């Protein structure tokens, strides 16, 4: 029998094999089908290709033949395809139809390479909304622009491209092998794989598009040019950048040498991988939901024989799930759970403060449990070294119930806390004793204290006395100086600070006032024109004020007709740092050089260094924005717990989450953490944590 016939016979025989179907497969399938929403009677499609109205196409073609270049001629241009270059597809009926069905503004290209025209418009609403615009070209691979609140990319090496001045992340991953005998002329990385028969690039970025009416929501837009062997050449990289320019309307779209945005997605690379395995690539997914973006990534390691180790890492705010039968194993600094994902795939899953991790393999004989543990420990040991957390208990104190907003003395030996009584009063904790700070006799509201050595200053107002009183209190002898205020405010106590040993400062509607303790006199140091100009007060007044730790600068938020304004006053100069989106909170860094702010719907923030701003995402801000003294960490309470954002310059490079209720915490001047909790016996307990 010749070889052809042999193969033929073999294939036929294989076709006769009885492949056993799992006995419960039909039942499981039926269950799953009917737990999925069924289509409506009207024929709503969950995934469809939007087609043109054929009547219009025919009419347009006829009109084209007679040479009438009217609106119908335009439609015929769309139906017959364009030769590429500048395009306007916003009036394409398919685009219009899809736009009505998705909750975000479509990102439409205004330029495509020569030879391409819009061929298909696809809408997938089976999971998240996803729109795909497919451009076809003669002799070339299709160009696909996809927009969704999710993105999934798979690459070995990546380059980063900056769009305009925004920090919106985007990645270009090229897994392209050269065509023919020579290298390609475009820029990118080349992916060497014995199995690579997919050639192409992906460039994706986050795009600000209105979702449900919120202009600050974003989607992911991917520009993909990918070709199977038979489909022709792909779009050169530089033209893909031009496509992105057209979509975003931004001229500056260029590669950057440093992977700044990559730091947001920096996964922990295991320092141990069994012999024979090599790094093969990263699979990264990101999703926008409710204004929050969450990431997960998967590093892959393979052998030539297709054995695989996967190290999957995801946001620690998403908990791990393991079967009940999982075996708990003590790892370095954490507990891991050994279990089987399926009959062929063992896995070890564990939590860390940086990521939750799952290490798995498809070959349990080659990669045993001990190997998985070694890989896991090589990850946890890195997290311990790089990402310290304030979790070592060093002391505890008891305070009155409802105590909150602790403000520690410079030597961290004392603190002032605020207690909710008929009003909000301040108490000093010192040497295990609580002292009521003066001002209670007026049944007043206490403002935040500011420390100078062993003294503190604060402002107290009441309904009867809106000017209120300033107090300078000496914690050594408990004597105090009462200072009548000539300043007027609107029911809120001011926030005075010491600017030197003898002078306190405060801001009211007239500007910056100082009071000399020797002269016992107020002086309007600098008049600040809050009416008009770059900053004006509305009826509500200044919403929030924040002094730098050394008292040299002050920032405030005012609400104006132009939106919220964040202004900084520094050595006589006024700088408008932000205008527009609402600002919820401010905090100066301990080195007095950077200002952090929380903006928008509790889901974004930025850091400003006097010149530039860099933004970061938040999983719903709840309060307590503060820089950890002495560390490059910006902390705040968010939905999942205490977020410790590690900062380099003005960039947030990594976030640890301490899960739990951290609504009531404070930072000591030495960087330790004070956490106030109800101890369950109707007492409040302050626990001091040290970093480890």
């Amino acid at each position: 029998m010749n070889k052809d016939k042999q193969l033929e016979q073999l294939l036929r025989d294989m076709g006769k094999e009885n492949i056993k179907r799992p006995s419960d497969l039909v039942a499981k399938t039926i269950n799953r089908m009917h737990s999925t929403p069924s289509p409506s009677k009207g024929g709503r499609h969950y995934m469809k290709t939007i087609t043109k109205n054929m009547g219009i196409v025919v009419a347009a073609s006829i009109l084209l033949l007679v040479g009438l270049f009217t609106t119908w001629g335009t439609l015929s241009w769309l139906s017959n395809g364009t030769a590429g270059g500048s395009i306007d597809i916003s009036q394409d009926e398919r685009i219009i139809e899809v736009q009505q069905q998705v909750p975000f503004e479509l990102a439409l290209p205004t330029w495509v390479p020569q030879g391409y025209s819009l061929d298909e418009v696809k809408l997938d609403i089976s999971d998240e909304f996803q729109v795909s615009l497919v451009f076809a070209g003669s002799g070339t691979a299709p160009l696909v622009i996809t927009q969704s609140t999710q993105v999934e990319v798979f690459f070995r090496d990546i380059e980063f491209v900056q769009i305009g001045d925004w920090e919106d992340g985007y990645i270009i991953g090229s897994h392209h092998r050269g065509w023919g005998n020579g290298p390609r002329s475009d820029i990118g990385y080349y992916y060497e794989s014995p199995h690579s028969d997919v050639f192409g690039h992906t460039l994706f970025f986050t795009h600000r598009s209105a979702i449900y009416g919120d202009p600050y929501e974003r989607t992911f837009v991917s520009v993909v040019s990918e070709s199977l062997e038979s489909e022709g050449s792909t779009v050169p990289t530089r033209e893909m950048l031009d496509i992105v320019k057209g979509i975003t309307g931004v001229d500056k779209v260029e590669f950057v040498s440093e992977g700044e945005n990559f730091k947001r997605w920096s996964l922990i690379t295991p320092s141990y991988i069994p012999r024979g395995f090599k790094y093969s690539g990263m699979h990264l997914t990101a999703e926008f939901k409710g204004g929050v973006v969450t990431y997960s990534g998967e590093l892959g390691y393979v052998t030539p024989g297709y054995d695989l180790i996967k190290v999957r890492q995801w946001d620690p705010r998403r908990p791990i799930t393991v079967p009940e039968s999982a075996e708990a194993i003590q790892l370095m600094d954490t507990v891991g759970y050994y279990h089987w994902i399926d009959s062929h795939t063992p896995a070890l899953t564990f939590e860390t403060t940086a990521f939750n991790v799952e290490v798995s393999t498809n070959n349990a004989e080659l990669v045993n449990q001990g190997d998985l543990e070694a890989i896991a420990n090589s990850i946890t040991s890195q997290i311990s070294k790089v990402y310290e957390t304030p979790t070592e208990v060093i002391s505890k104190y008891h305070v009155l119930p409802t105590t909150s907003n602790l403000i520690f003395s410079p030597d961290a030996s004392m603190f002032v806390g605020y207690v909710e009584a008929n009003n909000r009063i301040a108490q000093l904790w010192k040497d295990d004793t609580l002292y009521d700070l003066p001002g209670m006799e007026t049944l007043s509201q206490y403002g935040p204290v500011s420390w100078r050595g062993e003294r503190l200053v604060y402002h107290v107002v009441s309904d009867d006395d809106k000017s209120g009183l300033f107090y300078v209190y000496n914690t050594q002898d408990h004597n105090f100086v009462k200072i009548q205020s000539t300043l007027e405010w609107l029911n809120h106590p001011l926030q005075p600070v010491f600017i030197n040993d003898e002078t306190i400062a405060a801001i009211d509607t007239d500007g910056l006032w100082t009071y000399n303790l020797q002269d016992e006199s107020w002086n309007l140091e600098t008049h600040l024109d809050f009416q008009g100009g770059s900053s004006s007060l509305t009826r509500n007044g200044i919403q929030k004020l924040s002094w730098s730790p050394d008292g040299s600068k002050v920032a405030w938020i005012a609400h104006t007709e132009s939106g919220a304004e964040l202004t900084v006053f520094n050595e006589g100069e006024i700088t408008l740092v932000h205008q527009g989106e609402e600002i919820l909170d401010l905090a100066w860094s301990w080195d007095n050089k950077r200002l952090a702010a929380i903006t928008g719907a509790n889901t974004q923030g930025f850091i400003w260094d006097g010149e530039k701003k860099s933004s970061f995402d938040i999983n719903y801000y709840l309060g307590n924005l503060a820089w950890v003294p002495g560390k490059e960490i910006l902390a705040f309470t968010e939905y999942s717990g205490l977020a410790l954002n590690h900062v380099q310059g003005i960039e947030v490079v990594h976030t640890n989450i301490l899960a739990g209720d951290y609504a009531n915490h404070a930072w000591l001047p030495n960087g330790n953490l004070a956490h106030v909790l109800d101890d369950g016996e109707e007492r409040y307990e302050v626990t001091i944590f040290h970093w480890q």
Partner: protein
Amino acid sequence: MDEQSIVLRCQQGETKLLDQLVRLHADSLHRFCYHLSGNADSAAELFQDTWVKALKNINQCKANGTILGWLFTIAANIHKDRYRRHKRWQILSRKPQLALPTDSMDERLVNLEQRVLIRQEINKLDDSQRIPLILFYFEDYSVDAIAKILEVPEGTVKSRLYRARKHLKNRLEVLK
């Protein structure tokens, strides 16, 4: 009730009737999913996903068309989308899991090694070749029927089958 009637009534809202088609075509579709995906677990997953999608898109099914062909198309499209996105993981992680024949092993042992090799090589084929190959040799479809399912000319089906066979033959020679 015949298939076309079931489809029509599903399109009018009686979606529970689709269960009958699930049972009717379970073996054929499962085999197809197995040959596409290359292992039992992926086949089961693809089988379920195909039916879920079929239910969602039931209004797009032409009641007078080949229902099974429509299901094959859905399965192939799902697999293709996943394959494009997960190509490397699938290639790298897929270890051919033989569905060992349930009839006498003695008759098959001589060819077993070759079958292992062939399955591995089929798994590496591009979908444009693999799907026609599976339909022709494993599902006994004619060239004409395959052309209708894949919506390509008959000549295209023939050339793809030819290229697939040529590739497999060459690989068998190399691996011996």
